């Protein structure tokens, strides 16, 4: 029915998520709550908020990706679905890619789509809104990829949550720098094309390479 395991995993993950529609909105709710905290912590002056907005919006995206990463494989590990995937002899590379893309569809994509609204809340100048959405859409692909690597390495460990953040946040430094930097440049009216394409290149690289690591990590975790 599904020609490749990539499509099957993708459809499975999306269908599972939409069985609990409230859960699909959780990343957005999380993003909203953290954005609410910013003016409370930094003060409501628009000048302060708009100065920090690119970085704050990107850091929040990092945290949203991190928090949702822990559950990527949890269900499939507990009920034996991953075991079945390994036994089926299907390509783990394609299956892992399916998990990454599914996670991005459920966290990165909605965040990117709604980010202009959040940008408004933090007084991000209008020039930066479009760039914010585009950079988030590309950068969160990398975040999902690394999130899957971390989740695959820690799924068999019962206390993996804090460990996961130590494993993947340092790896995500370049995306944060590039993402926040490109938005800042857009706000200052500088050209952003080359940086956006670097961000795109990074996400392609992550999509191509991380499934190798994710696949091997799934195998290791199932032996525990």
């Amino acid at each position: 029915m599904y020609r490749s395991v990539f499509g099957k995993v993708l459809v499975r993950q999306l269908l599972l998520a939409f069985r609990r529609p409230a859960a699909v909105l959780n990343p957005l709710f999380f993003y909203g709550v953290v954005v609410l905290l910013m003016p409370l912590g930094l003060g409501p002056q628009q000048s302060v908020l708009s100065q920090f907005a690119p970085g704050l919006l990107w850091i929040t995206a990092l945290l949203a990706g991190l928090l949702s990463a822990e559950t990527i494989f949890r269900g499939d590990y507990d009920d034996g679905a991953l075991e079945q995937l390994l036994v089926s002899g299907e390509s783990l590379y394609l299956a892992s890619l399916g998990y990454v893309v599914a996670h991005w569809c459920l966290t990165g994509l909605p965040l990117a789509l709604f980010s202009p609204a959040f940008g408004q809340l933090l007084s991000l100048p209008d020039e930066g809104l479009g760039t914010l959405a585009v950079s988030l859409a590309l950068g969160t692909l990398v975040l999902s990829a690394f999130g899957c690597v971390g989740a695959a390495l820690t799924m068999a460990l019962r206390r993996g949550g804090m460990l996961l953040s130590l494993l993947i946040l340092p790896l995500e430094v370049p995306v944060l720098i590039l993402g926040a930097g490109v938005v800042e440049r857009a706000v200052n009216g500088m050209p952003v094309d080359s940086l956006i394409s670097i961000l795109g290149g990074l996400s392609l690289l992550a999509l191509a390479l991380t499934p190798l690591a994710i696949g091997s990590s799934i195998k290791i975790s199932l032996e525990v």
Partner: protein
Amino acid sequence: MAWTWFHRLGSSPWIYRFSGQLLRYLLPLAIVLVVAGSVWGLAFTPPDFRQGNSYRIIYIHVPVSVVSLAGYYVMAIAGAISLIWRLKVADMAMRVAAPIGAAMTFLALLTGAVWGKPTWGTYWVWDARITSMVVLLFLYLGVFALYEAYDNKALASKACAILSLVGTVNIPIIYKSVDWWYSLHQPASIKFTGGSTIDPSMFYPLLLMIVAVYCLYTCLLLMGLRLTLLETEAKTAWVKKEILGES
């Protein structure tokens, strides 16, 4: 020829004895070099005309930084070899390299911070070099923590090998992006003494220290390897022969 080498690398007794022989000469050499380089750098070089005497910290900061970065690659390559060829020695080398590398990174950060106080007037500046070092330290700590979290140590080293490989691909990107980030936010007002302007009287002791710390790192790696070899293969005949034959 190539295959006998490979075979030897798979043979624990050979590695144990060869590294023992090597250490007999390399360890004293490394210590002499480190002491000589330090004395040279501390007392026999002129002060930098801008930074004064505080720049003498560079003679340890730079070598230690260089080696801590190289150490991550050593760890990742050893991990890759153990994943692909299932070479036990490579697996042990990866485990040994992690704490040594983390200690070197810590030293690099500490000396960098202490150097910053007289030079910049503060212990901590988010300078590109220091920031990359912090990220590197966390990459090391991640490998460390992951190893500790697994109960099954054979699986733990596999997991760590994968993690360090992912980190290795990332390190050049991290360094590049941190450099870019620094130039974006703070046009470089104070820089390290650049390679092009450095005076030979300062450059040679620095070179000596870099070589010395590399030698020392190799010694530390080999010593850790020997210890791990004996620990894990205590029940084999060659260890028994080695121990009882010595007296």
